[in-house]
């Protein structure tokens, strides 16, 4: 469904000090798959995501969504940013925030209202429509951002460290929410995080990046059973093993080759 082929991104090309953020990166995501991208901080994860989202032109290489080359933000893709407080519009109510991207779609008024109500309810905010984002807690604001992305009815959801700025309890709730929504809406998810536990817990596959200039260090399959559970999944020996494996791959690449043997 999504193919990233030899994407390279150099900032300040042609200047005296160009910065190569992404060296050469290829990855594919199939339909309904949950793929996480993890890497050391400063590994160009956000840069990569912006290239995939069509917000930033790559220096070379190409991104294909359903065999169509991505040259601008695609209609079938929605983004959830890390910083919910800066990605929701504070002058719009929760409802208006969710409705804003839908204006261009030629949906009827009632259809839009139902869609908004439905998505808000699915993230547990059925009653918050008339409130402003800043009247909600951080976790609730991120739920609004997720509802907005879902209402856009994308085939693929790109999430850029979406839970990095909420507390641990909220984070676990939001992780499970995303898994539930993925089942309900049948969408594909590409999830960027620096949290290894989170990546292993959520994903079908984890893409481990090298430090900048970034390329794929390794792709790890996560054959943990679904549905996942914060307690049961995380006490599985396989979870610990995979978590340790990914950890080594990021922090001590020289050891990782032998770790799974």
């Amino acid at each position, binding site marked *: 469904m999504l193919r990233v082929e030899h994407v390279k991104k150099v900032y300040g090309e042609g200047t005296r000090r160009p910065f190569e953020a992404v060296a050469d990166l290829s990855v594919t995501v199939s339909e309904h798959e949950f793929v996480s991208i993890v890497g050391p901080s400063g590994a160009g994860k956000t840069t990569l995501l912006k290239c995939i989202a*069509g917000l930033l032109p790559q220096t070379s290489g190409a991104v294909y969504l359903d065999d169509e080359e991505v040259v601008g933000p695609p209609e079938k893709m929605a983004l959830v940013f890390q910083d919910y407080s800066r*990605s929701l519009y504070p002058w719009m109510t929760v409802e208006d925030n969710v409705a*804003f991207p839908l204006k261009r779609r030629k949906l009827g008024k009632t259809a839009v209202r139902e869609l908004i109500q439905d998505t808000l309810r699915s993230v547990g905010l059925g009653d918050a429509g008339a409130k402003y984002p800043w*009247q909600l807690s951080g976790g609730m604001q991120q739920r609004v951002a997720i509802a907005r992305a879902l209402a856009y009815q994308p085939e693929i959801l790109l999430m850029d460290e979406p839970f990095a700025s909420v507390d641990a309890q909220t984070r676990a709730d939001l992780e499970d929410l995303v898994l539930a929504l993925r089942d309900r809406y049948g969408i594909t998810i590409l999830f960027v995080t620096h949290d290894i536990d989170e990546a292993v817990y959520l994903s079908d596959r984890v893409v481990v990046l090298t430090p900048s200039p970034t390329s794929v260090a390794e792709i790890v399959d996560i054959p943990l059973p679904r549905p996942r559970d914060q307690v049961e999944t995380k006490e599985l020996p396989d979870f610990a093993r995979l978590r340790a494996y990914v950890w080594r791959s990021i922090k001590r690449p020289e050891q990782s080759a032998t770790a799974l043997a």
Partner: protein
Amino acid sequence: MMRTPTRGIRILGVGLEIAVPIGALALWAALTRDGSSFYFPPLLDIFRTFQETWLFAGMGTDVVPSLSRLLSGYAIAVVAGVVVGVALGSSHPLRRMVDPVVQFLRAIPPPVLIPAGILVLGVNSTMKVALIAFVCLWPILLNTIDGVGGVDPTLRETARSFQIPRRDRLFRVVLPSAAPQIFAGARVSLALAVIMMVVSEMVASTNGIGYFVLQSQRTYAITEMWSGILLLAILGYVLNALFLLVERRALRWHRGARTGSA
């Protein structure tokens, strides 16, 4: 949550807000009561003259021309400042190119433009409106440029990723985001507009409140002069209060977002 003062303190605050101005007026009235000073006539005389002069005899001849010049000049400045500001603020190279020019023009002390204005446009109303507009333009323009240039990149990217059309990006993302700064500039300009209205009427005019005050002073109509000054004070106060009212409504979200939950 905002800190809520206790009930007692709040009542005291409101009480003082009312008592202090009344006290000041009473003091003024008491000090001028005997009419011994030629320059400071009794306050009650000023009030009486105020009523005779402005309610509502002088309305048509002086207040209406003054106010209409003020509001036309100000309106032109707001529209031009926001339109040009959005255009300049949206482009970083453009912003840097025009910045020296804007800073230079802004640095001209406004009253010095009156002789040039008279020369080019004559002593008519157009000159005064143009002058007010020119002076009021800069704070609005500069703040709009700043506000538009400072729109959070994440807000912009969110709009782009959802393919929000240009029109909506401008009216529902860029302008609301820059609105707090635009309003701050517009408020500064409003005070400037009142000053420029009065100054321009003092130099070249046959009507207007500024003209009336100067004319009264020249003819030793001291009480009339004070009544004109009083009128200007009231005018400035009311204009500012109206402005705040509009601002509060338009920027309700902004105050909420700053003081609201974290």
